[in-house]
């Protein structure tokens, strides 16, 4: 979100105007989230429980992890439409590796090694597929939209081939722990999501690599003429996105205790929505992962609130869609005001 961009890049006092509209534009998603939480808490006391909070977070954690990777991609003015299908493919690959883990658990072997291999298979495959797509985009200069649209279809097909059309179900408790377990009272996927957000935040805000990403997204030619290896950078962000998709695939398979062919369908659009609601510009160079976190939470709370209020689930996509458009509108409105000065 815009307010996060400010936080990231302007720790000192800023002088470029600070009107009410400006402020509203920067904190709009956070403000909207807080208002929504307040209203829901008032209408339904059950909403404000710790249990429900973690429930909401667990629901958004998979899309949230995809959105963290998507933030890197969109910051470079790219797009990754393949993450939902990639999630399914990686989830299926991980299930294939983990399939035998039940017998190991029942025997004397703790089965932990097998789970580790399964997780690495999902994440490694995601990384590789992402790097492959990134190479087509960065090196062969095929538009990201086209490459990842191809991926959207291809990886879904690969999932079907790999599984021969059948879901793979029932894993060991060790395996299921990653999707269903808790550390204290916090669900494991929520912890993974928060760790991803934290790492991405540190990279984008403090590292050299993060600075390169913003420079590349802000002006690719200037970045190249400043000596940056822009091709490698482009490839890398799709690698990151693929890695996140692989991780999400592992967690979702674990959480559902089943690798499904239809897993993650439509998640690409929801994760893009989270990034955009969070104020990262689709033109690149502006935004950050804290905004994405808020965007993902906003989607989760909206969906949860609609369920709590007994609104038909058919309304959910309509509401989320409207919020995407509204948040971009507010952001752009504020920026226009800011730049006119």
């Amino acid at each position, binding site marked *: 979100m815009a307010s996060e961009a400010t936080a990231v890049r302007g720790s000192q006092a800023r002088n*470029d105007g600070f009107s009410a509209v400006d402020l509203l534009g920067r904190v709009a998603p956070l403000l909207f989230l807080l208002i929504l939480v307040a209203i829901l808490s008032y209408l339904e006391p059950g909403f404000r429980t710790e249990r429900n909070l973690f429930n909401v977070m667990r629901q958004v954690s998979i899309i949230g992890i995809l959105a963290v990777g998507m933030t890197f991609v969109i910051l470079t003015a790219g797009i990754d439409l393949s993450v939902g299908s990639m999630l399914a493919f990686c989830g299926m690959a991980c299930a294939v590796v983990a399939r035998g883990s039940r017998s190991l658990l029942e025997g004397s072997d703790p089965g932990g090694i097998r789970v580790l291999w399964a997780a690495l298979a999902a994440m490694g495959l995601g990384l590789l597929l992402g790097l492959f797509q990134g190479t087509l985009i960065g090196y062969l200069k095929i538009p990201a939209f086209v490459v990842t649209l191809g991926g959207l279809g291809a990886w879904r097909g690969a999932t079907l081939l790999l599984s021969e059309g059948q879901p793979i179900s029932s894993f060991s408790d060790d395996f299921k722990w990653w999707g269903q377990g808790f550390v204290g009272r916090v669900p494991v996927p929520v912890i993974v999501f928060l760790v991803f957000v934290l790492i991405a935040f540190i990279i984008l805000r403090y590292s050299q690599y993060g600075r390169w990403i913003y420079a590349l997204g802000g*002006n690719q030619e*200037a970045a190249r003429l400043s000596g940056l290896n822009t091709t490698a950078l482009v490839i890398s962000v799709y690698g990151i996105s693929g890695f996140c998709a692989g991780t999400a695939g592992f967690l979702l398979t674990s959480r559902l205790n089943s690798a499904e062919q239809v897993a993650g369908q439509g998640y690409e659009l929801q994760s893009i929505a989270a990034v955009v609601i969070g104020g990262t510009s689709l033109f690149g160079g502006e935004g950050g992962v804290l905004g994405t976190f808020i965007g993902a939470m906003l989607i989760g709370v909206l969906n949860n609130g609609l369920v709590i209020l007994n609104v038909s689930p058919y309304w959910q996509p309509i509401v989320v869609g409207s919020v995407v458009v509204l948040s971009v509108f507010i952001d752009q409105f504020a920026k226009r005001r800011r730049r006119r000065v």
Partner: protein
Amino acid sequence: MTDASPLLQMNGVDKQFPGVHALREVSLHVWAGECLALVGENGAGKSTLMKILSGVYPADSGRLLIDGQEVKPQNPHHAQTLGISIIYQEFNLFPNLSVEENIFIGREPNRTGFVKRRDLRVDAVALLDQLGVQLDPRSIVRNLSVAQQQMVEIAKALSLNARLVIMDEPTSALTDTEVQALFRIIRGLKEQGLGVIFITHRLEEIFSICDRITVLRDGQNAGDLDVADASPEKIVQLMVGRAVSELFTKQESAAFGEPVLSVRGVGRAATAQDAARVVLKNISFDLRAGEILGLAGLVGSGRTELARVLFGADPFDNGEILVEGKQVRIRNPSQAIEHGIALVPEDRKLQALVLLLSIRENISLPNLGELSSFGFVRRKDERALVAKYIEALRVRTPSQDQKVMNLSGGNQQKVVLAKWLSRNPRILIVDEPTRGIDVGAKAEVHELLTALAHTGVGVLMISSELPEVLRMSDRILVMREGSIAGELSRPDATQERIMELATGLGSSATAA
């Protein structure tokens, strides 16, 4: 067209842009059946004047008359209905459509929305015949040569019943035979009673096709002559004859050292497929430590292309580049930077700055390697480095976290310079270093470049402003059509000599 008023008159046209007085009281006229040459240096106001004529901008004051009747073109379409057609260097054609579709685009003969293809064909053939052009109306424009595409543009202008055709450097991409073909068409247009305004940098063409010459200089009329009374020398003198240039004192030279950059026979073709069309042809020169080497020439003569090749931004096909006497391999900007080369590009907003980022982030961008430990930027060191250069270059800003977007042109240019000076380059290439910045900032940039040369940096300075070139350079290379047309030492250099070399009319010193 037999009465006493010219086809077109522009009287006292004045135009101001923020910070620039582009045109001051400019007047010109064109008679029916006449070809008028409009000449002047880059930035003299030719393009602005033609944009006013074709309705792109309104004039601030002044009158436009066609057949003695005052008109005010509101937009390009309106100008077309007034009979004014302009043919730009970059054609406005649809590459995937055929010749006939392009000629009649938006005005296709039709019956309730369906194109009458036969009428379209007949009309197109009639037009092309009128022009005397052999061209299949069904050809797809993408597959045509530049010259043929130009014919399509001219046919389109005729189909719009143009009475005045403006051609902006129509010959710059044509071969000699194509130029002759174009001239035949222009003569045909004149015979049909059309007026033509012909903008060119190639002065010799004026003598073969034009009847009269209007010269612009610094946005003002500098002279109006009949071709019969003109000579190339006279035209060049009118183009550059600035009295103000005397006000600039030449900068003191530094002591020169060994060559820091040597270029040997560098050439580059326009595209890999088309080796015949060269962008750079056999370029060789030395740049010594402490020297400011001016690179003059017209826009499009290959100056910027040379700078980009030397910095690794574009590839080159043959020749070699030596840094401090050693042959180096420069295939991307990062390798050039490693060899101590820096480039301040032509367009700071598009090529040099990330406008959304702060001054700090822009200046430190090429230095992040040195400013980082284990991949993380050492913020304190970064701030110190940036503060040093903001101070040294007197960048006017309240904070180094100010977004570059919010700075003035002069301050933005200082940020670009700071970004590269912070790397202590041995070779600094600057492309139009003072374009679009105010006089004060310009003087500061000039001082800075001189001071750098005194510290032993070799500076290669590209500029279209002749007074700037003359004032700053220790030696001047003049480029024309991708090769070095000549070299002038400091005592010999005058605006006239540079223009002679740049336009190819030099009676002497044309050895390359």
